[in-house]
């Protein structure tokens, strides 16, 4: 008997249940298909403007910095300003995502923009989030041909663009949106929920930022 059958058999024996019991199968099928929502905190259930304010405040609480921009065309200048403020070279790496590619980068003549996955040599990465979650100031990033995951983790600084209209009150709203875009039960290869910059408290429980991932997380909220 394979380990698989042995384990499943032991589970069924311990539960005193069968793998072909119709009510059990129905209960599981129902839950997986209906994906019922459990308890959702009231905190994020706000009208749009307040929800975005909450997102900004919560992201700040976990040491992310946030800038609000009027429109997408302001992104290149905001990126360049961030680099200047931090005394960083005018260079970023980003994916080929259309939402980032179709921006007026030419306005920042000094800014060197490279694309594709990071090999660890980049100081600054730029990504576009699929959503924000107001309840905890979290950004949601999904992988794909134009959205390398390495950019989220290898550079020292991570700049993330979030469209204000995608800031949800809670995670459940984001899941519903993922199902709508990718299909029920289908996930992008990687979904990253990022809440602040990398941190560690492993040495004498002293909180330090920038453990292995980015030392700083800078969020541009557009709109």
């Amino acid at each position, binding site marked *: 008997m394979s*380990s698989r059958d*042995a*384990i499943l058999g*032991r*589970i*069924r024996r*311990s*539960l005193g*249940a069968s*793998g072909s019991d119709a009510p*059990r199968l129905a*209960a*599981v099928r129902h*839950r*997986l298909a209906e*994906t019922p*929502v*459990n*308890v959702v905190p009231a*905190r994020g259930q706000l009208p749009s403007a307040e929800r975005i304010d909450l997102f900004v405040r919560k992201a700040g609480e*976990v040491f992310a910095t946030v800038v609000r921009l009027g429109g997408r065309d302001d992104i290149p200048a905001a990126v360049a300003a961030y680099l200047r403020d931090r005394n960083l070279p005018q260079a970023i790496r980003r*994916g080929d995502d259309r939402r980032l590619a179709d921006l007026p980068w030419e306005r920042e003549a000094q800014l060197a923009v490279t694309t*594709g*996955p990071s090999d*660890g040599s980049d100081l600054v990465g730029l990504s576009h989030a699929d959503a924000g979650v107001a309840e905890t100031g*979290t950004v949601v990033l999904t992988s*794909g*041909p134009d959205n*390398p*995951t*390495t950019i989220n*983790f290898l550079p020292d600084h991570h700049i993330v663009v979030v469209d204000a209209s995608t800031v949800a009150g*809670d*995670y*459940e709203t984001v*899941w519903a949106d993922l199902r709508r875009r990718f299909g029920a*039960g289908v*996930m*992008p*290869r*990687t*979904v*990253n*929920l990022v*809440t*602040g910059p*990398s*941190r*560690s*408290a*492993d*040495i*004498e*429980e*002293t909180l330090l930022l*920038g*453990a*292995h*991932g*980015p030392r700083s997380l800078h969020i541009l909220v557009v709109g």
Partner: protein
Amino acid sequence: MSGGLTSLSFPKNAHAALANPPLLKAIAHIEETLVSGRRRAAEALPEFEALRDAGRDIKAHTLAHLDLYLEAFERKVVEAGGFVHWAADAADANRIILDICQKAGARRVTKGKSMITEEVGLNAYLQANGIAPVETDLGEYIIQLRGETPSHIIAPAVHVNKEQVAADFRRVHTDLDPKRNLDEPTSLLAEARGVLRERFLSADVGITGANFLVAETGSTVIVTNEGNGDLTQILPKTHIVLASIEKVVPTLEDVATIMRLLARSATGQEMSVYTTFSTGPRRAGDPDGPEAFHVVLLDNGRSAMLGSEFEDMLRCIRCGACINHCPVYRSVGGHAYGSVYPGPMGSVLTPSLQGLEKSAHLANASTLCGRCESVCPMRIPLPKMLRHWREKEFERHLTPKKARFGLAAWRFLAARPRLYGLATRLGAWGLARLAGRDGALRQVPLAGGWTRWRDLPAPEGGTFRTEWAKRGRK
């Protein structure tokens, strides 16, 4: 175990821990960080108690349908192009993982923080087979350099101070400039980050655990603060996830609910920094991510816990809240337990994993104060289960003879009220006389465990029952 400590030598281990001031200082710190953090986070979320109920219900539902959710999870992993392996025990899991590593031609392996790999002893096994695993969580890395095991499930190096870390880095990092200042945690972190960055980039295989397995999507989920788990799993060509079977939950909604409890209970954060869902290997056109994705599902005694008085333990999400709030853990730290999992959750789980005979003391080394249960996000009745283990010990005559004799004598006496009355009257009178005017005794025959540390307040004299009878009352 660390320094060869076992659960059988718990009192000796505890004695050594209590004579280790730097250790005690480090553990004392948990109060201001993790304990007060949890309290603040729980108070800041009005739905926290309702979430605990929901979390418990999710796990209870899942465990009742565990076979079916595991099959559903497996189907979705395979659909996404991944492989699922089933491991009955630790040896199985190690063999499967070694085999994957060897087929991938791996020599260097990075690891995300994972208690389950500690449970199966994966590092030693890989090492013995010519593969060098590198721990990448800062705390895990530190204890790996020290040749130790974690003393806490979420803060593995909580027992180590920064001077010790600096000494370890100087000993092991041979390229390190001797003049480099390593006095502060920031410089230690920078040093580790630099060394480990190179390890991440050169690893052939990355091994992580999982906080959740999602049946709905076939995703494995890891929750970290450092980002080391992500670098472990996205950079090498092969990603192996080792997870125990009870980690499966039905849906993303269920993950969201438990996620809201996990970090708050563990560190007081509302959300850990990185919560990452991985579903299969990299897809067509993806510029990065692992080319192969393996999930190893480990049983190791868990299926036998289902349907038993220990089933509720399978709801555990390894947040460590019970450990942080345990007066015993807070006195002696994690290594004294001599088991992979310390504190209340460890004392309940360990006898299931290593057998009751090898776990003597664990269930008994508790005041049953109940604080663990009061903070457990999954509402696991830990004291009740510690008591169940004591019952099993008693049934199997593993309880020490002296204690059995004492219990039998007490039971004999307490079941005979007249004799009991006489004995207590004599005893109270005798002790009161022995104390004289002092009111407390510094030494009492047969009560050395008590009077070694504290006085024994003397009885007032007559027992209540005799005094009551003297007043002619009923």
